[in-house]
């Protein structure tokens, strides 16, 4: 302890050494800050966690039949059957799996069409399994896409993992906002193409109905009236024949529900021979309607068949027409593929559009497109997990700044000195060096990317308090020595550093050990690493850097007795 006291004292005595300490600290601080642009440390809201379950969403193109959807699903399950770690699979055709955290915002409960299927997959327990679920999906995704996407062209297959934090629609969502629906559709296809080509992005999908060909039966009103029929009758019979209807019900004593009597044409007689106009016409020719006079009128006599494009559904968000293009990230942070894709988009769309960037806000990645010829305006808005991350980092940043201000006020009230409060604040802010360095080291030693996450930021905020406690105890102790025991300033500061070194170290050790188990957790790892490395930095800062500042301020001088 005496040695350390002398060491501090020797630093305090020499002006050159003091400058060196300050310069080194400043250099370390700026060097670590440079790691962000240099991508030494990657930011992400929350990393993935290994779970015992994941699900697969299968969407065949709009208008596909349940048989086609089944075919794709069959292909996917055939691949999954080879997996030894899968315990069971549940296949939900035409509907979503029982709602879970992920499906909550992905609209799984709204699925009610023939072109959707979801598979829920249960794995062996994660403790006895070597491969985490997120690596498993990472491995299977290309295999499944390669084999099964071609079964029904236009299919989209998504591997959905349980979110480790709050659920979002997708990692990356690009909203194509514009009034002209066909042009927005084209734009969204182009956006999806760019996302598809961006490294690190997978499961790209346009959330809009595909346009498919359909046949329209146009009733000839005059003919219908002249044959003594009603339009309503025509509509009803058509529906009854091909879709079927429950025309009556029967109560039952043995069942808790009424039993409907369902009338429809039998499967083999209603099936069309092929998908063309003639097939429909010949089918309708054999379907007769009875008019008021008891005469039979074939349907073909009174309706006309026309081939048209289907009308896709129209989607609005906040009163504006928008089409979502979504993509998931594959083991990487959303930020970098996003910036990558955005650069490509700016380049691509510059040919036809004037591209304007959004000002600094949490929508700062948005792109405003104005067509050079027609002047039509479109907006590409980035949403999804990225937006939530930005909002969270902004809010946590705000929380951090308010914490700084609150601590500062508290200290000013306590010490009645701005200088001393400032020293403590600067000292605690410098623990950032440790936080960033710690993440860099963690990234080096782990096989997967170690992200700077929202929990890291929380760790940093907590660190502010911890390191300010170190400095506070130090200053208090030194002031006590100066004022009560008439010690000279440099000696008092050196002695205070040496005496407080032990409890500072002890509490640091407690925090480091307390966080050691956190560091191995996938979600709270960021917090653990932030606390461990930040505390180490905080110890150095409060034992070396803070004493130097203390020596330099007049507020530490012996108080004059009133």
């Amino acid at each position: 302890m005496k040695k350390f006291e002398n060491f501090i004292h020797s630093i305090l005595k020499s002006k050159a050494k003091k400058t060196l300490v300050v310069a080194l600290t400043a250099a370390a601080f700026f060097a670590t800050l440079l790691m962000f642009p240099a991508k030494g440390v990657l930011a992400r809201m929350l990393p993935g966690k290994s779970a015992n379950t994941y699900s697969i969403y299968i969407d065949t193109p709009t208008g596909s039949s349940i048989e086609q959807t089944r075919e794709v699903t069959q292909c996917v399950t055939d691949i999954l059957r080879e997996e030894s770690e899968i315990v069971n699979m549940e296949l939900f055709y035409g509907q979503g799996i029982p709602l879970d955290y992920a499906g909550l915002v992905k609209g799984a409960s709204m699925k009610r069409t023939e072109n959707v299927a979801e598979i829920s997959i249960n794995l062996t327990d994660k403790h006895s399994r070597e491969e985490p679920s997120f690596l498993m999906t990472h491995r299977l995704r290309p295999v499944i896409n390669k084999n099964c996407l071609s079964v029904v062209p236009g299919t989209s297959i998504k591997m959905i993992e349980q979110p480790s934090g709050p659920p979002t629609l997708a990692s990356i969502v690009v909203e194509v906002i514009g009034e002209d629906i066909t042009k927005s559709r084209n734009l969204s296809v182009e956006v999806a193409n760019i996302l598809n080509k961006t490294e690190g992005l997978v499961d790209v999908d346009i959330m809009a109905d595909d346009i498919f060909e359909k046949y329209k039966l146009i009733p000839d009103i005059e003919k219908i009236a002249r044959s003594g029929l009603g339009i309503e009758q025509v509509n009803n019979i058509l529906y009854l024949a091909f879709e079927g209807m429950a025309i009556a019900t029967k109560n039952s004593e043995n069942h808790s529900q009424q039993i409907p009597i369902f009338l429809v044409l039998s499967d083999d007689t209603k099936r069309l021979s092929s998908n063309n106009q003639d097939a429909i016409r010949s089918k309708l020719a054999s379907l007769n309607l009875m008019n008021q006079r008891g005469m039979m009128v074939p349907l073909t006599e009174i309706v006309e068949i026309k081939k048209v494009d289907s009308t896709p559904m129209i989607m609005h968000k906040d009163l504006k027409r928008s089409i979502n293009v979504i993509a998931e990230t594959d083991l990487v942070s959303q930020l970098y593929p996003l910036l990558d894709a955005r650069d490509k988009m700016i380049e691509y769309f510059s040919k036809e559009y004037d591209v304007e960037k959004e000002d600094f806000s949490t929508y700062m990645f948005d792109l405003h497109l104005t067509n050079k010829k027609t002047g039509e305006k479109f907006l590409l808005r980035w949403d999804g997990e990225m937006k939530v991350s930005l909002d969270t980092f902004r809010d946590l940043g705000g929380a951090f700044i308010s914490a700084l201000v609150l601590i500062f006020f508290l200290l000013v009230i306590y010490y009645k000195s701005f200088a001393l409060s400032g020293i403590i604040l600067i000292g605690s802010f410098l623990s950032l060096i440790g936080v960033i360095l710690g993440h860099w080291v963690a990234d080096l030693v782990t096989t997967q990317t170690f992200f700077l996450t929202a929990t890291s930021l929380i760790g940093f905020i907590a660190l502010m308090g911890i390191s300010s406690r170190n400095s506070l105890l130090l200053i208090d102790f030194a002031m006590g020595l100066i004022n009560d025991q008439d010690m000279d300033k440099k000696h008092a500061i050196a002695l205070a550093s040496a005496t407080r070194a032990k409890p500072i170290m002890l509490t640091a050790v407690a925090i480091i050990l307390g966080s050691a188990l956190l560091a191995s957790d996938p979600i709270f790892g960021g917090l653990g690493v932030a606390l461990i490395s930040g505390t180490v930095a905080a110890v150095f800062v409060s034992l070396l850097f803070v004493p130097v500042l203390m020596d330099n301020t007049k507020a530490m001088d012996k108080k004059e007795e009133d």
Partner: protein
Amino acid sequence: METYKIKNIAGHLSKGFLANPLTPILAFAILLLGYISLEIMPREEDPQIAVSGGSIIVAIPGATPQEINNVIIKPLERRIREIKGVDNIYGTAMNNFGMVNVQYLIGEDRESSNLKLYDKVMQNMDKLPEGTMPPLVKPFDIDIDIPILTVAFYKNRKDDLDNIKLYKKIRELQQDINALDNVSKTILKGVKRPQFNVLVDLQKLSAYHISLGQVAKSIKSIASNSPEIDTSTSTGTITIFGIKNAIDDVDDLQDLIIAQYYGSPIYLKNIAKVEYNYDIQNFQSVLLTYKEKNASNFIDAGDQITLTVSKLKGTNAVLIAEAAIKELQKNRDALHEQGVGYIVTRNYGERANEAVNELVHHLIITILIIAFILIPFLGWRESLVVTIAVPMILAATLFIALMTDQTINRITLFAFLLSLGLIVDDAIIVIENIHRRMHLPESKGLKFSEIIIQATDEIGPSTNIATIAIMLTMIPMAFVGGMMGQFMKPIPLNVPVALAISLFVAYVFAPYLARKLIKYEEEKP
């Protein structure tokens, strides 16, 4: 010698409790309350996020998306905009119907949000266009909507059990499980409902010159059920007679006369296949593929029915899942006999329990490690004081969490792990200062309790300020908005509380324990 004057609340607290016989009782009470809280607090894996919102569905049969968009979606969206607290509005116009999904700002009160939405729709009922069906307002409800338990029932023998019989059996079981405490909603997925199917042959229809409308009309006309009739006899007693339903089974339907053809009757069975089966128009189905224990081959179980169980808000997922599984096990043999097997495909209760137990385990390990590390620096008696102080702080924090209606989840425990590093500090600082004071020459001739009180009092002011500073860093986090803010809420809720308690424990129990546990030879003055 002059008597020491206590300057800080720290000194007062330690003096007040140092020789108080109530102190150990209080300590035990706190530990006990903490343990009880840990056992009875509802456990869940992820914290509750108050997401409120809902969807409004309006149908106009026969309308195209464009029409729906103009007459329903656009005006409706504008009306919804008038509601305060709405974050996003998603409008979707499809063939025949339109849907507007409303998402409130995260953290908005659910009940009043639902009410506001319903209210807004009701106010504008008169503005609905002609031909519109009454609008449907469906609020989202996470607690009820996300099932904590799902069970797949499948046919484990390939014999007579058909989908309808499977459904009937599961339906009875559903009733039993729904009757369990705190179970809110149970749903069956993949159900095939019983139905009479009349599959008309188009060729025969035209051959006999019958229209489809005639068939429908004749079935409708005989499918009526009539109530029982009671009448009085001449002697004044009541006689009741019921009319037998015209359709009781498939045969009744088959023998229905549809029309006459050249004088001979045409029965329904002549032109259609009539069967008692399931709802063939329903394309939704659920299948199961599973592995037997330790087997490597998958078995295709074919059609299955999944039963989902949801819980009421704020209730213990672990207990509900356990109760439901117990109910299933009771029926296991009976089901097996009838050829029905089941697999639990989701159990959030178990998952929550595992997550909580794992983290509690981590907490204990961490406390022990810290205790061991302190031994070489402070001595084992001093380190024991810290080791006892930590569970007390956590116990008191847990109890307060229970009182404020929180649940134990991953984030709560994570808040505890985070606070662990912070809350040991106060006790360490107090004990270290007592330890240091004991060996100072100035302390010679003082009573041990005097040293303890003075040591505690000395570091009181700075410890107070430092702890308040850490509490202040945590409090702004409570105002972080959005999903993440809600998700992280247990941290700003619990860490400051734990810190405040850690101060109290450091001033009250640490000195008390130090006096009992640490050996100090008082020198006679």
